[in-house]
Protein backbone atom coordinates (compact mmCIF):
# COMPACT_ATOMS: atom_id res chain seq x y z
CA UNK A 1 0.00 0.00 0.00
CA UNK A 2 1.15 3.51 -0.81
CA UNK A 3 1.70 6.47 1.50
CA UNK A 4 -1.00 6.80 4.06
CA UNK A 5 -3.70 9.48 4.03
CA UNK A 6 -5.44 10.69 7.18
CA UNK A 7 -7.95 8.15 8.38
CA UNK A 8 -11.58 8.80 7.61
CA UNK A 9 -13.89 9.56 10.54
CA UNK A 10 -15.90 6.49 11.52
CA UNK A 11 -19.53 7.38 12.27
CA UNK A 12 -21.62 4.87 14.20
CA UNK A 13 -24.97 4.02 12.64
CA UNK A 14 -27.55 1.92 14.46
CA UNK A 15 -28.93 -1.14 12.75
CA UNK A 16 -27.94 -3.18 9.75
CA UNK A 17 -26.89 -2.01 6.31
CA UNK A 18 -30.13 -1.92 4.26
CA UNK A 19 -28.73 -3.73 1.20
CA UNK A 20 -25.37 -5.13 2.29
CA UNK A 21 -22.58 -5.89 -0.18
CA UNK A 22 -21.34 -9.40 -0.75
CA UNK A 23 -17.68 -9.90 0.09
CA UNK A 24 -15.37 -12.10 -1.97
CA UNK A 25 -11.77 -13.13 -1.37
CA UNK A 26 -10.84 -10.44 -3.88
CA UNK A 27 -12.96 -7.63 -2.37
CA UNK A 28 -12.26 -8.55 1.28
CA UNK A 29 -9.27 -6.17 1.61
CA UNK A 30 -11.46 -3.25 0.53
CA UNK A 31 -14.10 -3.86 3.21
CA UNK A 32 -11.64 -4.75 5.96
CA UNK A 33 -9.60 -1.62 5.28
CA UNK A 34 -12.73 0.51 5.04
CA UNK A 35 -13.67 -0.61 8.52
CA UNK A 36 -10.31 0.80 9.68
CA UNK A 37 -11.03 4.19 8.14
CA UNK A 38 -9.15 3.82 4.88
CA UNK A 39 -10.52 3.86 1.34
CA UNK A 40 -8.53 1.70 -1.06
CA UNK A 41 -8.90 0.54 -4.62
CA UNK A 42 -6.93 -1.25 -7.29
CA UNK A 43 -4.27 0.41 -9.43
CA UNK A 44 -2.88 -1.33 -12.50
CA UNK A 45 0.81 -2.17 -12.24
CA UNK A 46 1.20 -2.21 -15.99
CA UNK A 47 -0.39 1.13 -16.95
CA UNK A 48 -1.06 2.82 -13.62
CA UNK A 49 -4.80 3.19 -14.14
CA UNK A 50 -6.92 3.59 -11.02
CA UNK A 51 -10.47 2.33 -11.02
CA UNK A 52 -13.41 2.15 -8.66
CA UNK A 53 -14.93 -0.18 -7.56
CA UNK A 54 -11.76 -2.32 -7.32
CA UNK A 55 -11.36 -4.76 -10.22
CA UNK A 56 -9.25 -7.84 -10.67
CA UNK A 57 -8.41 -6.87 -14.23
CA UNK A 58 -7.42 -3.46 -15.56
CA UNK A 59 -10.18 -1.91 -17.68
CA UNK A 60 -7.55 -0.15 -19.74
CA UNK A 61 -4.99 -2.82 -20.61
CA UNK A 62 -6.40 -6.09 -19.18
CA UNK A 63 -3.40 -6.62 -16.99
CA UNK A 64 -4.26 -8.75 -13.98
CA UNK A 65 -1.33 -7.32 -12.09
CA UNK A 66 -2.59 -4.79 -9.57
CA UNK A 67 -1.74 -3.06 -6.30
CA UNK A 68 -4.14 -1.93 -3.63
CA UNK A 69 -3.79 1.85 -3.48
CA UNK A 70 -5.10 4.15 -0.79
CA UNK A 71 -7.29 6.99 -2.06
CA UNK A 72 -7.21 10.44 -0.51
CA UNK A 73 -10.59 10.78 1.20
CA UNK A 74 -11.47 14.11 -0.37
CA UNK A 75 -13.17 15.28 -3.51
CA UNK A 76 -15.96 17.38 -4.92
CA UNK A 77 -19.66 16.75 -5.12
CA UNK A 78 -20.48 16.17 -8.79
CA UNK A 79 -24.21 15.71 -8.19
CA UNK A 80 -26.67 14.27 -5.70
CA UNK A 81 -30.29 13.41 -5.13
CA UNK A 82 -32.71 12.57 -2.35
CA UNK A 83 -34.92 9.54 -2.95
CA UNK A 84 -38.52 9.91 -1.77
CA UNK A 85 -39.91 6.62 -3.07
CA UNK A 86 -38.27 3.94 -1.03
CA UNK A 87 -37.27 0.45 -2.10
CA UNK A 88 -38.54 -2.13 0.40
CA UNK A 89 -35.07 -2.68 1.91
CA UNK A 90 -34.68 1.04 2.63
CA UNK A 91 -38.11 1.81 4.07
CA UNK A 92 -36.85 1.56 7.66
CA UNK A 93 -34.05 4.04 6.90
CA UNK A 94 -36.41 6.76 5.68
CA UNK A 95 -35.50 9.36 3.06
CA UNK A 96 -31.89 9.25 2.06
CA UNK A 97 -29.40 11.22 0.01
CA UNK A 98 -26.72 9.87 -2.19
CA UNK A 99 -24.16 11.40 -4.43
CA UNK A 100 -21.68 11.08 -7.20
CA UNK A 101 -18.32 12.20 -5.85
CA UNK A 102 -15.24 12.95 -7.92
CA UNK A 103 -12.28 12.09 -5.70
CA UNK A 104 -9.10 14.12 -5.77
CA UNK A 105 -7.26 11.06 -7.09
CA UNK A 106 -9.32 11.09 -10.28
CA UNK A 107 -11.86 8.36 -9.71
CA UNK A 108 -15.62 8.78 -9.47
CA UNK A 109 -17.80 6.88 -7.05
CA UNK A 110 -21.34 6.81 -5.82
CA UNK A 111 -22.03 6.87 -2.08
CA UNK A 112 -24.37 7.98 0.67
CA UNK A 113 -24.36 11.71 1.29
CA UNK A 114 -24.51 12.74 4.95
CA UNK A 115 -24.94 16.10 6.62
CA UNK A 116 -27.27 19.05 6.24
CA UNK A 117 -28.99 19.05 2.82
CA UNK A 118 -29.09 22.86 2.95
CA UNK A 119 -25.30 22.75 2.49
CA UNK A 120 -25.39 20.46 -0.55
CA UNK A 121 -24.54 22.00 -3.92
CA UNK A 122 -22.70 20.79 -7.02
CA UNK A 123 -18.93 21.35 -6.90
CA UNK A 124 -18.66 21.85 -3.13
CA UNK A 125 -15.71 20.07 -1.46
CA UNK A 126 -16.62 16.88 0.37
CA UNK A 127 -14.77 14.48 2.63
CA UNK A 128 -15.23 10.74 2.71
CA UNK A 129 -16.33 9.10 5.94
CA UNK A 130 -17.17 5.61 7.11
CA UNK A 131 -20.75 4.84 8.14
CA UNK A 132 -20.25 1.94 10.54
CA UNK A 133 -23.40 -0.15 10.91
CA UNK A 134 -23.80 -3.07 13.30
CA UNK A 135 -22.96 -5.50 10.48
CA UNK A 136 -20.16 -3.59 8.81
CA UNK A 137 -19.08 -0.41 7.05
CA UNK A 138 -20.33 1.62 4.12
CA UNK A 139 -18.54 4.61 2.64
CA UNK A 140 -20.17 8.00 2.55
CA UNK A 141 -19.41 11.64 1.84
CA UNK A 142 -20.25 14.85 3.67
CA UNK A 143 -19.56 18.52 3.06
CA UNK A 144 -16.07 19.46 4.26
CA UNK A 145 -15.80 21.55 7.38
Amino acid sequence: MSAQSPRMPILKRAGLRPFPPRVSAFTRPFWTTLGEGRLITTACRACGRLTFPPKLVCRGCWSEDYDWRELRPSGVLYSYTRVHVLPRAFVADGLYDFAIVDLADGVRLMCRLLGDPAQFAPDIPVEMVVAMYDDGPLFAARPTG
Partner: protein
Amino acid sequence: MRNAAILGYGAVPVGIYQRVKDGSDPPLEHELAVRVVLDAVRMAGLRKEDLNGVVVAHPGDHTKQGYFHTFLTAYLGLTSRSTVVQVLGNGMTAGLAFDEGLRLVRGGETDCVVVIAAHFESGTPTADHLNFSIRLTGDVDFQSIFGAVPIAWYAMSARRYMHEHSVSRAQIAEVAVKNRRQAALNPLAQYRTPVTLDEVLAQRMIVEPLGLLEVPGRADGAVALVITSEELAQKSGRPHVLVRSRGFYHEGEHQIPDRHTDMTDYQSIRIATKTALERANIGLDDVDVFQIYAPCTIVEVMATESMGLFPRGKGWAAAADGRSAFDGSRPVNTSGGLLSRGHPPEATPLYDVVEACIQVLGLAGERQVPNARVGMTVSELGNYNAAIAHILEGRP
Protein backbone atom coordinates in the same frame (compact mmCIF):
# COMPACT_ATOMS: atom_id res chain seq x y z
CA MET B 1 -28.87 -7.32 -47.80
CA ARG B 2 -32.49 -6.60 -48.63
CA ASN B 3 -34.74 -4.09 -46.85
CA ALA B 4 -37.32 -4.80 -44.20
CA ALA B 5 -40.63 -3.04 -43.70
CA ILE B 6 -43.31 -2.77 -41.06
CA LEU B 7 -46.59 -3.90 -42.56
CA GLY B 8 -48.75 -4.06 -39.47
CA TYR B 9 -48.86 -3.04 -35.84
CA GLY B 10 -51.16 -3.40 -32.88
CA ALA B 11 -51.08 -1.94 -29.38
CA VAL B 12 -53.33 -1.61 -26.37
CA PRO B 13 -53.48 1.78 -24.65
CA VAL B 14 -50.73 2.04 -22.03
CA GLY B 15 -52.23 1.86 -18.57
CA ILE B 16 -52.67 0.05 -15.30
CA TYR B 17 -54.16 -3.32 -16.24
CA GLN B 18 -53.36 -5.41 -13.20
CA ARG B 19 -54.86 -3.20 -10.49
CA VAL B 20 -58.60 -3.40 -10.99
CA LYS B 21 -61.72 -2.69 -8.96
CA ASP B 22 -62.79 -5.35 -6.49
CA GLY B 23 -65.09 -7.80 -8.16
CA SER B 24 -63.56 -7.45 -11.62
CA ASP B 25 -60.82 -9.67 -13.01
CA PRO B 26 -57.62 -8.26 -14.55
CA PRO B 27 -56.48 -9.51 -17.95
CA LEU B 28 -53.38 -11.71 -18.14
CA GLU B 29 -50.28 -10.58 -20.00
CA HIS B 30 -50.60 -13.11 -22.82
CA GLU B 31 -54.25 -12.24 -23.37
CA LEU B 32 -53.27 -8.70 -24.29
CA ALA B 33 -50.27 -9.92 -26.27
CA VAL B 34 -52.44 -12.25 -28.35
CA ARG B 35 -54.88 -9.46 -29.10
CA VAL B 36 -52.18 -7.09 -30.39
CA VAL B 37 -50.63 -9.83 -32.54
CA LEU B 38 -54.00 -10.46 -34.19
CA ASP B 39 -54.47 -6.73 -34.76
CA ALA B 40 -51.02 -6.40 -36.33
CA VAL B 41 -51.43 -9.42 -38.59
CA ARG B 42 -54.89 -8.28 -39.72
CA MET B 43 -53.55 -4.81 -40.50
CA ALA B 44 -50.84 -6.45 -42.60
CA GLY B 45 -53.49 -8.42 -44.48
CA LEU B 46 -51.65 -11.64 -43.70
CA ARG B 47 -52.69 -15.00 -42.32
CA LYS B 48 -51.28 -17.05 -39.52
CA GLU B 49 -49.53 -19.30 -42.06
CA ASP B 50 -47.57 -16.34 -43.44
CA LEU B 51 -45.70 -15.83 -40.18
CA ASN B 52 -42.31 -17.48 -39.82
CA GLY B 53 -40.56 -16.29 -36.70
CA VAL B 54 -41.43 -14.89 -33.30
CA VAL B 55 -39.30 -12.34 -31.47
CA VAL B 56 -40.45 -11.37 -28.00
CA ALA B 57 -39.13 -8.60 -25.80
CA HIS B 58 -38.28 -10.20 -22.47
CA PRO B 59 -41.34 -9.27 -20.44
CA GLY B 60 -39.56 -8.29 -17.27
CA ASP B 61 -39.28 -9.72 -13.85
CA HIS B 62 -42.76 -8.83 -12.68
CA THR B 63 -44.49 -10.89 -15.36
CA LYS B 64 -45.53 -14.22 -13.94
CA GLN B 65 -45.51 -16.39 -17.04
CA GLY B 66 -42.02 -17.72 -17.65
CA TYR B 67 -40.56 -18.55 -21.08
CA PHE B 68 -43.11 -16.13 -22.41
CA HIS B 69 -41.93 -16.43 -26.02
CA THR B 70 -42.48 -20.16 -26.42
CA PHE B 71 -45.65 -20.02 -24.34
CA LEU B 72 -47.07 -17.33 -26.62
CA THR B 73 -45.92 -19.07 -29.79
CA ALA B 74 -47.73 -22.21 -28.72
CA TYR B 75 -50.82 -20.30 -27.56
CA LEU B 76 -51.05 -18.83 -31.08
CA GLY B 77 -50.38 -22.19 -32.72
CA LEU B 78 -47.41 -20.86 -34.64
CA THR B 79 -44.52 -22.87 -36.01
CA SER B 80 -41.26 -21.35 -37.14
CA ARG B 81 -38.33 -22.24 -39.39
CA SER B 82 -36.43 -19.04 -38.55
CA THR B 83 -36.47 -18.47 -34.81
CA VAL B 84 -38.49 -18.15 -31.64
CA VAL B 85 -36.54 -16.00 -29.23
CA GLN B 86 -36.80 -13.65 -26.30
CA VAL B 87 -34.56 -10.59 -26.32
CA LEU B 88 -33.31 -8.73 -23.25
CA GLY B 89 -31.45 -5.45 -23.11
CA ASN B 90 -32.51 -3.27 -20.19
CA GLY B 91 -34.67 -0.31 -21.32
CA MET B 92 -33.58 -1.07 -24.85
CA THR B 93 -35.19 -4.53 -24.71
CA ALA B 94 -37.99 -3.85 -27.17
CA GLY B 95 -35.65 -1.79 -29.35
CA LEU B 96 -33.39 -4.82 -29.64
CA ALA B 97 -36.39 -7.08 -30.27
CA PHE B 98 -37.35 -4.79 -33.17
CA ASP B 99 -33.75 -4.89 -34.33
CA GLU B 100 -33.69 -8.69 -34.19
CA GLY B 101 -36.87 -8.93 -36.25
CA LEU B 102 -35.37 -6.61 -38.85
CA ARG B 103 -32.14 -8.61 -38.93
CA LEU B 104 -33.98 -11.88 -39.58
CA VAL B 105 -35.85 -10.40 -42.52
CA ARG B 106 -32.88 -8.48 -43.91
CA GLY B 107 -30.70 -11.56 -43.71
CA GLY B 108 -33.23 -13.61 -45.66
CA GLU B 109 -33.98 -15.98 -42.79
CA THR B 110 -37.69 -15.22 -43.09
CA ASP B 111 -40.05 -13.04 -45.13
CA CYS B 112 -42.35 -12.30 -42.23
CA VAL B 113 -41.74 -12.16 -38.51
CA VAL B 114 -43.83 -10.91 -35.61
CA VAL B 115 -42.20 -8.86 -32.84
CA ILE B 116 -44.08 -8.73 -29.55
CA ALA B 117 -43.67 -6.92 -26.24
CA ALA B 118 -45.91 -7.29 -23.21
CA HIS B 119 -44.91 -5.60 -20.00
CA PHE B 120 -46.97 -6.25 -16.88
CA GLU B 121 -45.80 -4.75 -13.60
CA SER B 122 -48.62 -2.82 -11.98
CA GLY B 123 -49.58 -5.75 -9.77
CA THR B 124 -46.28 -5.40 -7.93
CA PRO B 125 -46.25 -2.85 -5.08
CA THR B 126 -43.92 0.07 -5.77
CA ALA B 127 -41.59 -0.63 -2.82
CA ASP B 128 -41.04 -4.19 -4.06
CA HIS B 129 -40.67 -3.05 -7.63
CA LEU B 130 -37.99 -0.57 -6.53
CA ASN B 131 -36.30 -3.20 -4.39
CA PHE B 132 -35.76 -5.15 -7.56
CA SER B 133 -34.79 -2.03 -9.51
CA ILE B 134 -31.90 -1.16 -7.22
CA ARG B 135 -30.21 -4.33 -8.49
CA LEU B 136 -30.37 -2.77 -11.95
CA THR B 137 -28.64 0.38 -10.81
CA GLY B 138 -24.91 -0.01 -10.93
CA ASP B 139 -22.66 -2.56 -9.26
CA VAL B 140 -24.81 -4.40 -6.70
CA ASP B 141 -21.97 -4.67 -4.21
CA PHE B 142 -20.56 -1.15 -4.51
CA GLN B 143 -23.38 1.08 -5.82
CA SER B 144 -26.80 -0.52 -5.31
CA ILE B 145 -25.92 -0.71 -1.61
CA PHE B 146 -26.78 3.00 -1.36
CA GLY B 147 -30.29 2.54 -2.67
CA ALA B 148 -30.07 4.23 -6.05
CA VAL B 149 -33.13 3.65 -8.21
CA PRO B 150 -32.85 3.98 -12.00
CA ILE B 151 -34.42 7.44 -12.21
CA ALA B 152 -31.87 8.64 -9.64
CA TRP B 153 -29.27 8.89 -12.44
CA TYR B 154 -31.53 11.27 -14.27
CA ALA B 155 -32.20 13.27 -11.12
CA MET B 156 -28.46 13.66 -10.62
CA SER B 157 -28.04 14.63 -14.27
CA ALA B 158 -30.83 17.20 -13.84
CA ARG B 159 -29.10 18.69 -10.82
CA ARG B 160 -25.83 18.91 -12.71
CA TYR B 161 -27.43 20.32 -15.87
CA MET B 162 -29.22 23.00 -13.85
CA HIS B 163 -25.94 23.91 -12.18
CA GLU B 164 -23.86 24.06 -15.34
CA HIS B 165 -26.34 25.93 -17.51
CA SER B 166 -28.07 28.06 -14.85
CA VAL B 167 -31.41 26.52 -15.75
CA SER B 168 -34.30 26.09 -13.33
CA ARG B 169 -36.35 23.01 -12.61
CA ALA B 170 -39.37 24.88 -14.00
CA GLN B 171 -37.68 25.48 -17.34
CA ILE B 172 -36.90 21.78 -17.76
CA ALA B 173 -40.40 20.82 -16.55
CA GLU B 174 -41.90 22.45 -19.65
CA VAL B 175 -41.12 19.13 -21.34
CA ALA B 176 -43.79 17.45 -19.19
CA VAL B 177 -46.39 20.05 -20.16
CA LYS B 178 -45.56 19.76 -23.86
CA ASN B 179 -45.66 15.97 -23.85
CA ARG B 180 -48.94 15.86 -21.96
CA ARG B 181 -50.48 18.15 -24.56
CA GLN B 182 -49.46 15.62 -27.22
CA ALA B 183 -50.70 12.65 -25.19
CA ALA B 184 -54.09 14.32 -24.90
CA LEU B 185 -54.41 13.69 -28.65
CA ASN B 186 -53.19 10.07 -28.54
CA PRO B 187 -55.71 7.28 -27.87
CA LEU B 188 -52.85 4.95 -26.82
CA ALA B 189 -51.66 7.31 -24.08
CA GLN B 190 -51.92 6.60 -20.36
CA TYR B 191 -52.21 10.22 -19.16
CA ARG B 192 -54.37 12.40 -21.39
CA THR B 193 -55.48 15.28 -19.20
CA PRO B 194 -53.50 18.43 -20.02
CA VAL B 195 -51.44 19.87 -17.16
CA THR B 196 -50.05 23.32 -16.48
CA LEU B 197 -46.49 24.08 -15.47
CA ASP B 198 -47.70 25.07 -12.01
CA GLU B 199 -49.40 21.70 -11.63
CA VAL B 200 -46.22 19.88 -12.64
CA LEU B 201 -44.17 21.85 -10.13
CA ALA B 202 -46.70 21.35 -7.33
CA GLN B 203 -46.40 17.55 -7.33
CA ARG B 204 -44.57 15.73 -4.56
CA MET B 205 -40.89 15.01 -4.98
CA ILE B 206 -39.87 11.56 -6.23
CA VAL B 207 -36.12 11.92 -6.77
CA GLU B 208 -34.99 15.49 -6.13
CA PRO B 209 -35.15 17.74 -8.09
CA LEU B 210 -37.76 15.75 -10.05
CA GLY B 211 -41.38 15.44 -8.95
CA LEU B 212 -44.17 13.03 -9.82
CA LEU B 213 -44.91 14.39 -13.30
CA GLU B 214 -41.25 14.75 -14.26
CA VAL B 215 -40.62 11.00 -13.94
CA PRO B 216 -42.47 8.09 -15.57
CA GLY B 217 -45.49 6.57 -13.92
CA ARG B 218 -45.89 2.83 -13.59
CA ALA B 219 -47.58 1.12 -16.49
CA ASP B 220 -48.53 -2.05 -18.30
CA GLY B 221 -48.75 -2.43 -22.04
CA ALA B 222 -48.67 -4.78 -25.01
CA VAL B 223 -47.62 -4.08 -28.58
CA ALA B 224 -46.82 -6.11 -31.70
CA LEU B 225 -45.31 -5.43 -35.11
CA VAL B 226 -45.37 -7.47 -38.29
CA ILE B 227 -42.09 -7.09 -40.17
CA THR B 228 -41.79 -8.33 -43.75
CA SER B 229 -39.40 -8.03 -46.64
CA GLU B 230 -39.76 -4.82 -48.64
CA GLU B 231 -40.83 -6.93 -51.60
CA LEU B 232 -43.66 -8.59 -49.70
CA ALA B 233 -44.78 -5.22 -48.31
CA GLN B 234 -44.84 -3.69 -51.80
CA LYS B 235 -46.70 -6.68 -53.24
CA SER B 236 -49.36 -6.32 -50.55
CA GLY B 237 -50.34 -2.95 -51.95
CA ARG B 238 -50.88 -1.76 -48.40
CA PRO B 239 -49.40 1.24 -46.60
CA HIS B 240 -46.13 0.24 -44.97
CA VAL B 241 -43.05 1.68 -43.35
CA LEU B 242 -39.61 0.98 -44.75
CA VAL B 243 -36.77 0.70 -42.25
CA ARG B 244 -33.96 2.69 -43.81
CA SER B 245 -31.14 2.12 -41.32
CA ARG B 246 -29.95 1.50 -37.80
CA GLY B 247 -27.18 2.81 -35.59
CA PHE B 248 -25.88 1.57 -32.26
CA TYR B 249 -23.27 2.60 -29.76
CA HIS B 250 -22.27 1.33 -26.32
CA GLU B 251 -19.75 3.52 -24.57
CA GLY B 252 -18.33 0.80 -22.35
CA GLU B 253 -19.69 2.08 -19.05
CA HIS B 254 -22.29 0.64 -16.68
CA GLN B 255 -24.23 3.69 -15.50
CA ILE B 256 -21.79 5.45 -13.18
CA PRO B 257 -18.29 5.43 -14.72
CA ASP B 258 -15.09 5.23 -12.71
CA ARG B 259 -13.68 8.55 -13.85
CA HIS B 260 -14.78 12.15 -14.06
CA THR B 261 -17.06 12.33 -17.11
CA ASP B 262 -19.79 14.71 -18.22
CA MET B 263 -23.13 13.19 -17.16
CA THR B 264 -25.07 15.86 -19.06
CA ASP B 265 -23.85 14.69 -22.45
CA TYR B 266 -24.94 11.41 -24.00
CA GLN B 267 -22.26 10.37 -26.46
CA SER B 268 -24.06 7.08 -27.18
CA ILE B 269 -27.10 8.80 -28.68
CA ARG B 270 -24.88 11.15 -30.65
CA ILE B 271 -22.95 8.29 -32.24
CA ALA B 272 -25.93 5.95 -32.73
CA THR B 273 -28.08 8.58 -34.42
CA LYS B 274 -25.21 9.86 -36.55
CA THR B 275 -24.49 6.31 -37.69
CA ALA B 276 -28.13 5.74 -38.59
CA LEU B 277 -28.30 9.01 -40.55
CA GLU B 278 -25.11 8.24 -42.46
CA ARG B 279 -26.34 4.79 -43.36
CA ALA B 280 -29.63 6.22 -44.61
CA ASN B 281 -27.63 8.86 -46.46
CA ILE B 282 -29.66 11.69 -44.98
CA GLY B 283 -29.12 14.50 -42.49
CA LEU B 284 -30.87 15.42 -39.28
CA ASP B 285 -32.92 18.01 -41.15
CA ASP B 286 -34.40 15.27 -43.33
CA VAL B 287 -36.04 13.62 -40.31
CA ASP B 288 -39.57 14.90 -39.75
CA VAL B 289 -40.34 13.36 -36.37
CA PHE B 290 -38.36 11.93 -33.43
CA GLN B 291 -39.41 9.34 -30.85
CA ILE B 292 -36.77 9.34 -28.13
CA TYR B 293 -36.62 7.16 -25.04
CA ALA B 294 -36.77 9.78 -22.30
CA PRO B 295 -38.03 8.55 -18.93
CA CYS B 296 -37.70 12.00 -17.32
CA THR B 297 -38.04 15.60 -18.50
CA ILE B 298 -34.30 16.18 -18.26
CA VAL B 299 -33.55 13.15 -20.44
CA GLU B 300 -35.49 14.57 -23.38
CA VAL B 301 -33.50 17.78 -22.97
CA MET B 302 -30.09 16.11 -22.78
CA ALA B 303 -30.81 13.51 -25.46
CA THR B 304 -32.05 16.07 -27.98
CA GLU B 305 -29.03 18.26 -27.29
CA SER B 306 -26.61 15.35 -27.55
CA MET B 307 -27.95 14.27 -30.94
CA GLY B 308 -27.71 17.82 -32.24
CA LEU B 309 -31.36 18.86 -32.42
CA PHE B 310 -30.76 21.83 -30.12
CA PRO B 311 -27.62 23.62 -28.86
CA ARG B 312 -25.97 22.41 -25.64
CA GLY B 313 -27.57 23.99 -22.61
CA LYS B 314 -30.52 25.30 -24.65
CA GLY B 315 -32.60 22.19 -25.33
CA TRP B 316 -34.95 22.95 -22.43
CA ALA B 317 -36.31 25.95 -24.34
CA ALA B 318 -37.66 23.85 -27.23
CA ALA B 319 -40.61 22.55 -25.21
CA ALA B 320 -41.67 25.94 -23.90
CA ASP B 321 -41.48 27.68 -27.26
CA GLY B 322 -43.13 24.81 -29.12
CA ARG B 323 -40.25 23.78 -31.38
CA SER B 324 -40.33 20.21 -30.06
CA ALA B 325 -44.12 19.92 -30.29
CA PHE B 326 -45.90 18.04 -33.09
CA ASP B 327 -46.60 21.35 -34.86
CA GLY B 328 -43.08 22.71 -34.28
CA SER B 329 -39.92 22.53 -36.35
CA ARG B 330 -38.39 19.56 -34.45
CA PRO B 331 -41.27 17.35 -33.28
CA VAL B 332 -40.18 15.13 -30.41
CA ASN B 333 -42.20 12.44 -28.63
CA THR B 334 -45.45 13.23 -30.40
CA SER B 335 -47.14 10.29 -28.64
CA GLY B 336 -46.68 12.02 -25.30
CA GLY B 337 -43.46 10.09 -24.75
CA LEU B 338 -42.59 8.02 -21.72
CA LEU B 339 -43.94 10.68 -19.37
CA SER B 340 -47.49 10.81 -20.74
CA ARG B 341 -48.02 8.17 -23.43
CA GLY B 342 -46.67 5.97 -20.68
CA HIS B 343 -43.71 3.75 -19.95
CA PRO B 344 -44.14 -0.01 -19.66
CA PRO B 345 -40.33 -0.36 -19.87
CA GLU B 346 -39.92 -3.64 -21.72
CA ALA B 347 -42.49 -2.55 -24.31
CA THR B 348 -41.77 1.18 -24.53
CA PRO B 349 -39.44 1.20 -27.56
CA LEU B 350 -42.04 -0.71 -29.62
CA TYR B 351 -44.68 1.83 -28.65
CA ASP B 352 -42.28 4.46 -29.98
CA VAL B 353 -41.93 2.53 -33.25
CA VAL B 354 -45.73 2.40 -33.50
CA GLU B 355 -45.93 6.17 -33.02
CA ALA B 356 -43.26 6.68 -35.67
CA CYS B 357 -45.27 4.47 -38.07
CA ILE B 358 -48.50 6.34 -37.33
CA GLN B 359 -46.76 9.65 -38.05
CA VAL B 360 -44.92 8.68 -41.23
CA LEU B 361 -48.07 7.03 -42.62
CA GLY B 362 -50.02 10.22 -41.93
CA LEU B 363 -52.46 8.54 -39.54
CA ALA B 364 -51.85 10.64 -36.41
CA GLY B 365 -55.00 12.75 -36.71
CA GLU B 366 -54.94 15.87 -34.57
CA ARG B 367 -51.31 15.35 -33.50
CA GLN B 368 -50.08 14.71 -37.05
CA VAL B 369 -46.76 16.29 -37.95
CA PRO B 370 -47.55 17.95 -41.30
CA ASN B 371 -46.20 15.95 -44.25
CA ALA B 372 -44.13 13.63 -42.07
CA ARG B 373 -42.44 10.92 -44.13
CA VAL B 374 -39.23 10.15 -42.25
CA GLY B 375 -39.06 9.30 -38.55
CA MET B 376 -36.36 8.33 -36.10
CA THR B 377 -36.72 6.15 -33.02
CA VAL B 378 -34.14 5.86 -30.25
CA SER B 379 -33.97 3.68 -27.17
CA GLU B 380 -31.32 3.25 -24.51
CA LEU B 381 -30.34 0.85 -21.77
CA GLY B 382 -29.93 2.93 -18.62
CA ASN B 383 -28.24 6.31 -18.14
CA TYR B 384 -27.74 6.27 -21.92
CA ASN B 385 -24.58 4.17 -21.74
CA ALA B 386 -25.85 2.78 -25.02
CA ALA B 387 -28.36 3.84 -27.62
CA ILE B 388 -29.97 2.27 -30.67
CA ALA B 389 -31.54 4.34 -33.42
CA HIS B 390 -33.68 3.38 -36.41
CA ILE B 391 -34.78 5.51 -39.34
CA LEU B 392 -38.21 4.78 -40.77
CA GLU B 393 -39.80 5.98 -43.98
CA GLY B 394 -43.53 5.94 -44.57
CA ARG B 395 -45.04 4.64 -47.78
CA PRO B 396 -48.69 5.45 -47.26
